[in-house]
């Protein structure tokens, strides 16, 4: 019989972080991000020399840097009042939504796995398999518009789900830990995809030389943009919204989601209630990866330049942070995806004002760290659980 591992309970506790603490973590993340900004900013560093004679200069420079940096983030991610015209002013928010869509989809997938007690680290591998499926359909098949797109999306979802299900199968069958299995399968998937991209007749571009790169997806398979050529944003954001709703319906309202949660909380009780725990693992991995497959389709079918290996794979990891931040609620996962989407959209603007965009990576990491640290520290120090039973009316 499988016992709940400490690892699983830590993940579960991270997912159950209260919204207050999440907001606090985000604020703290920005605060420390600001400190980093100041420490390494050229203008501020230049004032260090006469810090003792004119400390005011240092503080002023520091203040300006933070205002400039986060100001640029807002301009790059939400609204740019300095834009040439209205179209340019509103471009940032459309970029944020565009960047957020795949994070939300993949984040939902990983969060689903976490709730079933499966720490799916295989986002990368699953996304890559989805990319392979979608790209193959988009570049090698000829179908009417819309239908072509739908088939390509389905291909991505099925390929990713199958790859995830296989990891679940290995866990169920052999008892191997899914973290190890999915990490190893990431490498296999990446190499497999590279091989496909290098091989004529598979995914290698017809015009392609030595670089492993696919043809651009057929126009019939592309996700349509929402505002023509005005903005890059495409229907992916609506797919993400639909996915969020589907996730909520599945996990909070459906019997399947109920059984998923049951296995995630207490596999023993699930087994005693007649649930086949092992096959639930396989199904949960498949559904988890299916959401990630949506993210893959979003990427493969929105990039007019053709797919390379290095592109997009990191979404699998970014999605882990989205899932941890989003916790158990679909709405929160969507919000977390938006936040990190805004980081992605806003980082070029920060670079323009001389703040290195890597700061945003630091902020992102800090936020997750602040959320994940308390349960981790508690587990490491083995602090006792607060006794629930005593707080109850007899």
């Amino acid at each position, binding site marked *: 019989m499988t016992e709940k591992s400490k690892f699983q309970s830590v993940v579960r506790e991270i997912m159950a972080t209260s919204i207050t603490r999440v907001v606090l973590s985000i604020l703290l993340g920005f605060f420390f991000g600001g400190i980093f900004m100041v420490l390494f900013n050229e203008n501020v560093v230049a004032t260090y020399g006469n810090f003792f004679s004119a400390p005011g200069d240092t503080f002023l420079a520091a203040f300006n840097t933070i205002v400039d940096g986060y100001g640029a983030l807002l301009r790059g991610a939400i609204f740019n009042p300095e834009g040439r015209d209205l179209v340019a002013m509103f471009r940032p928010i459309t970029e944020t939504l565009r960047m957020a869509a795949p994070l939300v989809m993949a984040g939902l997938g990983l969060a689903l796995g976490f709730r079933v007690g499966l720490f799916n680290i295989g986002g990368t591998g699953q996304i890559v398999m989805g990319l392979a499926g979608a790209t193959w359909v988009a570049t090698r098949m000829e179908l009417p518009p819309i239908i072509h797109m739908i088939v390509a999306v389905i291909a991505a979802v099925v390929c990713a789900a199958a790859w995830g299900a296989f990891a679940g199968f290995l866990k169920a069958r052999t008892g191997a830990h899914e973290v190890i299995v999915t990490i190893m399968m990431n490498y296999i998937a990446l190499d497999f995809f590279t091989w496909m991209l290098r091989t004529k007749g598979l995914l290698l571009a017809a015009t392609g030389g030595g670089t492993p790169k696919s043809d651009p997806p057929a126009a019939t398979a592309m996700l349509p943009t929402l505002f023509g050529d005005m903005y890059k944003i495409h229907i992916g954001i609506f797919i993400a919204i639909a996915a969020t709703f589907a996730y909520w319906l599945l996990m909070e*309202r459906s019997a399947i989601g109920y059984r998923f949660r049951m296995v995630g909380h207490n596999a023993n009780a699930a087994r005693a209630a007649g*649930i086949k725990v092992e096959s639930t693992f396989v199904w949960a991995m498949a559904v988890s990866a299916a959401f990630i497959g949506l993210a893959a389709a979003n990427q493969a079918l929105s990039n007019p330049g053709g797919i390379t290996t290095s592109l997009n794979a990191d979404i699998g990891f970014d999605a882990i942070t989205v899932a941890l931040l989003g916790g158990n609620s679909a709405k929160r996962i969507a919000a977390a995806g938006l936040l990190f989407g805004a980081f992605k959209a806003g980082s070029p603007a920060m670079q323009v004002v001389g703040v290195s965009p890597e700061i945003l990576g630091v902020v992102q990491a800090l936020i997750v760290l602040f959320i994940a640290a308390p349960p981790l520290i508690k587990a490491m120090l083995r602090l006792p659980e607060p006794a*629930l039973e005593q707080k109850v009316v*007899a």
Partner: protein
Amino acid sequence: MKLELRGITKRFGSLVANDAISLTVQPGEIVSLLGENGAGKSTLMNVLYGLYQADAGQILVDDQEANFKGPGDAMAAGIGMVHQHFMLIPVFTVAENVALGHEPTKFAGQIDLSEARARVKEISDQFGFNVDPDALVRDLPVGVQQRVEIIKALSRNAKTLVLDEPTAVLTPQETDELMTIMKQLAAAGTSIIFITHKLREVKAVADRIVVIRLGKVVGEAKPSAPASELASLMVGREVDLSVERSKKAPGEVVLSLSNISVRDDRGQLAVDSLSVEVRAGEVLAIAGVQGNGQTELAEAIVGLRKLEKGSGEIKFKGENIEHKSVRHRLDDFLSYVPEDRKKDGLISEFTLEENIMLNQSYDDDRGAEFVNRGLINTKVLEAEAEKVIKEFDVRTQGSKSLAGQLSGGNQQKLVLAREMSRPHDVLLVSQPTRGVDVGSIEFIHDQIMQERDDQQTAVILISTELDEVLALADRIAVMYRGRIVGIVSADATRETLGKMMAGIAA
């Protein structure tokens, strides 16, 4: 050491867990703290042990006010605690466990266990504990592990021992041994606070009984007080501990096991060619000391454990079911109340409602229609949950609260509510009243008898509590080392059963 708690009040939010509780323990006195689950006993002891800070009130040690910021302070003041769940490290030896936390070291930081070993031996000899300092804790029986906990406390010069539900995990023999030990300790001057809800034990060992209900001291009694009086004090109303049973002839054979063998997790034969049958409207008790294959037998009936290849059959109304899945057995005829409700019977993180549909989450399950086209029908579920919560007297703040927040007795009632309210022909209940308070025991026993009398259910009751077995059973099968030693009728004496539990056929 004289210990006095004066007006201790402890609140959790709006809930007053302890309401101005006062309690005095004289040196060498055994005071029983009697109360239902959730009455506030454990909270009080956690305040005493420094785990919680009281909102009001004082703790006095030998008439000096003490202020315990943590268990360290309490221990230093001579208070030792033996928790219901042992705080021992299984892979360490007894001496290592005893030394843990204040390990004396030799040159270059080597741990010096000789002192701990000597201390264990000294205490063990003094009270006849019979504990080997070099034995690994995981190899020791539960009863001996408990003695290690007591030694741990005594080795730190505890003058007052708090025993929190110490007999919940013990066999009747081990319980008797513990009682003897408690009396010896008291005779040697150690004060003991004995937390329990078992009346028989209180009467056997306590000098004085303090009854707590809903966070307040509601009375004190002498151990000579009749059990029914103590029970009434505890529950706050008249309690009838006897079970009413009608004489009647049982019906047809519903479930029959013939020659089944099952292995436990370690691969040992835990059930060995066992045959037994149970009829409609009959309670068949499986008695025996814990660990004689009862758990594995229950799991085999449910289908959680496979029968040994080529061994025997399980038939429901003449039809072989040993190949059927757990889900189909539960759906077709079986209601199952597992012995470890927290581990197997419910999901603490789920609401009461969600726990009600635990084994009815498929569209085609018999009984209540909780699921419709794959979606949970929350209205139906809520209505059913409210109904059974009321019917089974589950004390809760509402069907949306979490099962983990219920007291043990109420958790058990929740599991019973779920299992009894869905269609079934066979009810398999394992340790239905373990860790359950008196008020709930009475209720649970009545429910089981109603199953027998009104529903004509075939009831299999697995219990290590002789009182329970004698009160409820029509026939008693005693299990020993995976076999049934014999089956006797309900008028068998304790002595007969005791002998059978030791493997001697009647």
